[in-house]
């Protein structure tokens, strides 16, 4: 599959739009999943997918085959998602209000967790996971998502985000600490 992707990249670089179409078709779902996990918003994730491929097309001549094409796309998508999240955080107060509301919801969940109804409980845990992910800083969320969900190594993430290995490691540690703080009270009910 990677060999096919490699040859599609070469053909796309040479101006073959059918080859680029193949790459879009092959990687769109993975980019969407990454973008959604980073932004937590379906519409933003769609924007990220679209912009990622437009940028990738424009920068195809800058792609160096040292990393896989998928990793290179992840890098573009995660950087664009980061911009998007930071922009929101800086300039909209909504986030702050949302966090307060989410905190309230979390508290209610912890108090009201039903014992026997596993379906309802599962849905509440998912809500809580989403809220806990929203509590992470953009940098923490990006590093965590790339490590936890996409399986990139810490070194690869550091290179992708231009933050270096140590800073990436600390972003992941902080992310895990915050997730534990927010999730252990509710996960404890499952034990």
């Amino acid at each position: 599959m990677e060999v096919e992707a490699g040859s599609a990249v070469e053909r796309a670089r040479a101006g073959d739009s059918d080859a680029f179409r193949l790459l879009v078709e092959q990687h769109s779902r993975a980019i969407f999943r990454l973008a959604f996990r980073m932004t937590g918003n379906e519409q933003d994730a769609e924007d990220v997918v679209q912009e990622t491929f437009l940028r990738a097309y424009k920068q195809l001549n800058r792609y160096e085959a040292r990393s896989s094409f998928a990793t290179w796309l992840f890098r573009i998508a995660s950087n664009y998602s980061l911009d998007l999240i930071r922009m929101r955080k800086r300039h909209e107060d909504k986030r702050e209000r949302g966090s307060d509301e989410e905190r309230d919801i979390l508290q209610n969940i912890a108090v009201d967790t039903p014992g026997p109804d596993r379906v309802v409980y599962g849905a509440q845990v998912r809500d809580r996971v989403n809220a806990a992910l929203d509590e992470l800083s953009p940098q923490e969320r990006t590093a965590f998502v790339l490590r936890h969900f996409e399986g990139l190594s810490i070194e690869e993430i550091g290179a992708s985000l231009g933050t270096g290995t140590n800073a990436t490691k600390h972003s992941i540690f902080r992310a895990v600490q915050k997730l534990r703080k927010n999730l252990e009270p509710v996960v404890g009910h499952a034990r």
Partner: protein
Amino acid sequence: MNHISEEQLVLLYYGESDEAASIDQHLVECEACRKEFRALQLVLNTVDSAPVPERGAEYGRAVWQRIEKRIGKRKQRRFAQWWIWAPAMAALLVTAFLAGRLTHKPVGTDVAKNQQIRERILMVAVGDHLERSQMVLAELSNAPDHVGKLDITDERQMASELLDDNRLYRQTARSTGNTAVANVLDDLERVLIEIAHSPTEVSSGQLDDLRQQIESRGLLFKVRVMGSEVRQQEVPPAPQKDGKKL
């Protein structure tokens, strides 16, 4: 061995620990650390339950259909070199705007109405200009880190062409009292000058300097916001109840 830190356990969980064997051994022997690791595993496994909306097998094709035209446009733009005619069109719009202000002497309610129309003409031109400028700024801000030189010939040439438009719009905005637009265009102009005067190939240090220029002024965001506000002003007012339009 002392107890294992949370950081060590996180690295172990993700298979990135350099001391996996000794930690494993410790976990066999130490109930407290084993319990701690179980708690960590439980939380991280729970995170996997965060749902992601499903996208079907046809999703990739749908994405391609959405971007295909824009890719086509980018190609065409490259060959047609839109920046050759864009300044001329922009100049024409602004000249029409200024000519209207200087030559036409409307009376009564026509004054306000014509003023609104001319403002909208200016806004259309400025909106397009900001969109093109945003592309240049975004390309540089998001360029991947690289070793050696990076070719920014396209961005440099676009910046150079955008400069002429920018001066015209800035002066027009200032003369018509649109201070907010004029201020953003003022900031934009300084960065466009920097880009236009950069070498065609830049080192990573030079690229960082350009990024710094863009970031320190919060320029990309200002241009996005102003572009979006300008676009909203382009929308003509809704028809009045009696069916008349402005």
